[in-house]
Structures are given as structure tokens and as C-alpha cells.
């Protein structure tokens, strides 16, 4: 049962945070906000403990959560109930997610990237009580990508500190992540008919990065959830509603601490906030990105922890360009082609109906991914073979949900202010 200690701790923390924030306008529903605040809170707390020189232990992680939860009982209660009874399609979406969650939680993690990357670092962090810089900086540990943002390993390590086996701990995390992903897709697709929202939720819960055993224990389910949560918060963020802005900021910070792709997606969310009409009210999103990135990068730089030498270097990119199509052709498979086509359709739908700022997110992510592949120190075909399917598939469920929501509830630009020419630049 100790495998469930981390998820339970995160959900209690998320529930406590939700009690304080749910009254704010634009806040996502509890099924999105609780897991978002929970995983983000656990990750942020571990970094905070490290920054003040305290070890992460069951005591230093558990007691503050209990105290915060107790304090949250004093939070003012909402006078209005916005959530009615769940409809039949919401129940159907939940039922679709249940078997995926059970399958994922019942299968101990065994994928390569779990055993020698995420799970390994989780075991190291749990044993040391912190992000053991001497282990990360040991040159022979380069295979474990010491530079990767640590949040997924931190979540697994939380359960290990309570006595869990790493493989069981990673598996247990999958269950709440499956439900959270499905709920975020449901929420991101609002505006679409309930049946389609349920389809979006089910597509999220059964996404290949969530359910395939070869990906067991990987960070992609967490990434997929955080992207979907950010997108679910996006419309309220773009309207400048406080609850939406804070939820998007939490998702942005958590994304920036979850894989390098997460950092690119977080930068996309921050850019969307910056170029939207609500940029003055959405500044916390950019601040969250800067704080999260600096927290991890400062730790890395101060301890001499190095990652792969990916440099934006024209001399390295130019020779790669002619070989790139052949390298991509080598790794093409039916699932990859289907995922790529789905992405193309999502972009079309978003371009036609979503708020223009929305497109900043896939644009930043796509540019970052292409640059990483073109500058990788590894063989390009090898790098593509072992990552391209996951890179493309992880953010897809959230974007599909957003595309559905946008297509059935198209963005309408605000009417020009009196005295302004139509087409003039909007004021913030």
C-alpha cells in the first residue's frame, strides 16, 4: 500500500489548495484542479526543501501537507454550487477511464526509460533525501539524463520514501494521472457536445503513452495530463480570469519541471499569455515559467551537472537537413503516421476556430522539437526511433480536446472599442 502514499499525499495537498482557489472565477473543476495542484505542489515542495537545505523525508513531506489540509478547512465555502449532477456522458467518460487506470496501476513499471532514467533517479533521490548532485554529476551517469527536469522522479521518490518499491510506486501514480488526464480533456473540450467531450476524455485515458506497457513508468502520462490541464485553463486565462490564470500558471510551472518537451510547452503557454489581450492579468503564467526553469537550471549549473550538448549551431544543423527526410522515413510506422495526421488536423481546427494566441503553444513546441532533433549529438535516426512517437503523442490528447471545444464553440474576437478602427492592435 505504500505505493499509494505519494498519490494520496498529492491528492490531499491538491484538495487543500482547491478549497482555497475554487471560488475564483475561471477555476477549473476539482477533477482537474486537485491533481494539478497536488502534483505541482509536491514537486515545488521538494525543490523548496532542497533550496533551504532540508532533506525530503516522510516527515518533511507529510506533516506540512496535513497542516495545510487542516488549515484549508478554514477556507471560506462557496455559496453557490455550479456543478450539477454529472450527466450520462460524464459518467460514460469516467467508466471509459476506469479500466485504463486499473490496467496501468496494476502493472509494475518496466520500460527502459523507467528502469534506467526516471525510476533510477527516483530511487537515488529517495535514498539521498534530495536531488543528489554528486550522483547526477558523476560522468558515467550521463545515460540517465541528469539534466532532465526532476518532477516525475520526485513524485515516484515520494512513495519510495514511504517504503514503496519504485516500479509499484510509478504504476500507482498512473491511476490518478489517467483520471486527471481524462477529466482535463473533458474540460478542455467544453463547448462541444457532451458525447464528443466523452470521446475526448476516453481518447486521453487510452492514449498510447498512457497504456502501452513499453512506456510503463515513463513521464509521458504526467506530461499529457499537465498539457491537457494547461489547455483546459487556457480560455479562462485568455479572458484574464484569476482562477484560470492561476491554474495555467500552476500547469506551466509543473510542465517546465517535467521533461524538456514540457519546458517547451510551458514556454508556449507563457507566450500565449503574453500575446493575448489579457497579458497584464496573465503575468503569473510567465513568472511561473521563469521561476520553475531557473530553480532547476540554477541547481544544475551550481553543481556542474551537464546534459547532452544540444547547441543551436548552424554548423551542426546544416549537414543534418539533407539527411532528415531519410531519417524520418526510417522510423515511419502506421501509428506514427496516424498520430502525425491527427496533429495536422488539430492544427487546422485550431487555426480555424481557436483564439489566435492558442497557436503559440504548438508552434513553440514544434520549433523546439525540430531544433532538438537537428542538433542532437546522437545519430538522428536512432534519436527519432526511440522518442518521436512519444514526443508527438503525449500532448495530443489535450490538443484534440481543445480542437473539439474550439470547433463547437468558435472563438469570437472582441468587438473593437469605440473610436477604434477594426483591425487595429488591441489594447491590453
Amino acid at each position: 500500500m505504500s505505493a499509494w502514499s505519494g498519490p494520496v499525499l498529492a491528492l490531499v495537498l491538491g484538495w487543500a489548495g482547491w478549497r482555497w482557489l475554487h471560488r475564483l472565477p475561471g477555476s477549473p473543476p476539482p477533477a482537474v484542479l486537485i491533481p494539478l495542484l497536488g502534483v505541482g505542489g509536491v514537486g515545488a515542495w521538494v525543490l523548496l526543501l532542497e533550496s533551504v537545505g532540508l532533506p525530503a523525508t516522510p516527515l518533511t513531506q507529510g506533516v506540512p501537507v496535513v497542516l495545510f489540509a487542516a488549515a484549508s478547512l478554514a477556507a471560506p465555502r462557496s455559496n453557490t454550487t455550479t456543478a450539477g449532477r454529472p450527466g450520462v456522458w460524464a459518467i460514460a467518460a469516467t467508466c471509459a477511464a476506469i479500466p485504463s487506470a486499473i490496467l496501468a496501476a496494476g502493472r509494475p513499471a518496466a520500460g527502459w526509460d523507467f528502469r534506467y532514467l526516471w525510476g533510477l533517479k527516483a530511487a537515488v533521490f529517495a535514498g539521498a533525501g534530495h536531488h543528489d548532485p554528486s550522483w547526477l554529476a558523476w560522468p558515467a551517469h550521463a545515460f540517465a539524463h541528469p539534466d532532465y527536469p526532476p518532477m516525475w522522479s520526485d513524485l515516484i521518490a515520494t512513495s519510495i520514501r514511504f517504503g514503496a518499491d519504485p516500479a509499484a510506486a510509478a504504476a500507482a501514480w498512473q491511476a490518478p494521472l489517467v483520471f486527471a488526464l481524462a477529466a482535463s480533456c473533458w474540460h478542455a473540450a467544453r463547448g462541444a457536445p457532451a458525447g464528443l467531450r466523452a470521446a475526448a476524455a476516453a481518447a486521453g485515458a487510452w492514449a498510447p503513452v498512457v497504456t502501452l506497457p513499453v512506456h510503463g513508468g515513463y513521464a509521458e502520462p504526467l506530461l499529457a495530463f499537465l498539457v491537457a490541464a494547461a489547455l483546459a485553463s487556457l480560455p479562462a486565462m485568455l479572458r484574464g480570469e484569476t482562477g484560470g490564470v492561476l491554474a495555467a500558471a500552476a500547469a506551466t510551472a509543473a510542465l517546465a519541471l517535467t521533461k524538456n518537451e514540457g519546458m517547451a510547452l510551458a514556454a508556449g503557454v507563457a507566450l500565449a499569455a503574453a500575446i493575448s489581450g489579457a497579458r497584464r492579468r496573465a503575468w503569473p503564467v510567465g513568472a511561473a515559467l521563469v521561476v520553475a526553469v531557473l530553480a532547476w537550471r540554477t541547481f544544475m549549473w551550481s553543481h556542474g551537472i551537464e546534459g547532452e550538448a544540444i547547441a543551436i549551431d548552424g554548423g551542426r544543423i546544416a549537414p543534418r537537413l539533407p539527411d532528415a527526410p531519410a531519417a524520418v522515413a526510417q522510423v515511419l510506422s502506421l501509428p506514427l503516421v496516424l498520430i502525425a495526421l491527427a496533429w495536422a488536423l488539430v492544427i487546422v481546427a485550431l487555426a480555424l476556430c481557436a483564439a489566435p494566441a492558442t497557436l503559440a503553444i504548438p508552434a513553440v513546441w514544434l520549433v523546439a522539437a525540430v531544433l532538438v532533433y537537428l542538433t542532437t549529438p546522437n545519430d538522428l535516426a536512432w534519436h527519432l526511433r526511440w522518442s518521436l512517437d512519444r514526443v508527438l503523442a503525449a500532448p495530443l490528447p489535450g490538443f484534440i480536446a481543445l480542437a473539439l471545444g474550439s470547433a463547437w464553440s468558435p472563438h469570437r474576437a472582441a468587438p473593437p472599442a469605440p473610436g477604434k478602427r477594426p483591425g487595429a492592435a488591441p489594447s491590453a
Partner: protein
Amino acid sequence: MTEPTHAHSPRVALARVAALLAVLLAVAASLSERITGRGVEPAEPAASRVLPDLHDMTAPPGTVVEVIVAPTPAGDSAVKALLHELAWRRPDLRFATTDTWPDTVSVEHVLTLGDVSPTPRSRRVWQSGIAAYWTVERE
């Protein structure tokens, strides 16, 4: 600034078709992953089957250990796989082969895998299966 979009305009209809097709393609991709054989459990790494249990290897946490592997036909890739598995089995230690050993760190602990011996000044303190753990006396 975009022009207002109407629910029954051609662009909205096109967006809806695109979004619906994207859902179908995502589901098809998920199904095809299973049909094409990626739905199976990952095999246990070969290095895991070769190595013995290392839990009772008497090296205190934080020890840096040089790994010497007997020559193998599988070459460098097999050695790398063994190093990965060693890290997984004993995350409290730091392993490195002679090739990747930092110049600034002196070798005081050695793990040999297979029929190979470290320097003459080494003393074997633990052995299990193909693995033997040695401490190196200072000169």
C-alpha cells in the same frame, strides 16, 4: 484580431470535421500500436539476467566503484547495459568503467564481472555469481 466566427460557416464546419477526424485517428493510432505488437510487456534486460543480487555487496553508500568486465563478444553495448543495470541494482553507489573513470578520483573499490582480476594490490571482500567486489590497498 480575427473576424467573428459563425456556428454554421464553412470554416467552422471544416474545423469540426478536422477535430472529429483527429479523434478517430488518435483512437486508430492507439489500436494500431496494440495490433503491431507494441502492446506486449517489455522483456527483462539481458544484463539483469546475468548479474547476481548485489544487495549484500559490502560497499557503503556513496562508494565509487570501478567496474572491470571480462571481454565479451557483445562488446561495448553489453558493457554499457551492465553498467545501467548496476546503477539500477545499487543506486546508492557510483559505478564507472576504466574508460569513463574521472582522472581526479583514485580507484579504491573495484567490481569485476566475469573471469578477470583487478590490480595485484586488490583484496576480494565479496563474491556472488560472476561478480566479485575488491578493495584496493593504497600504495
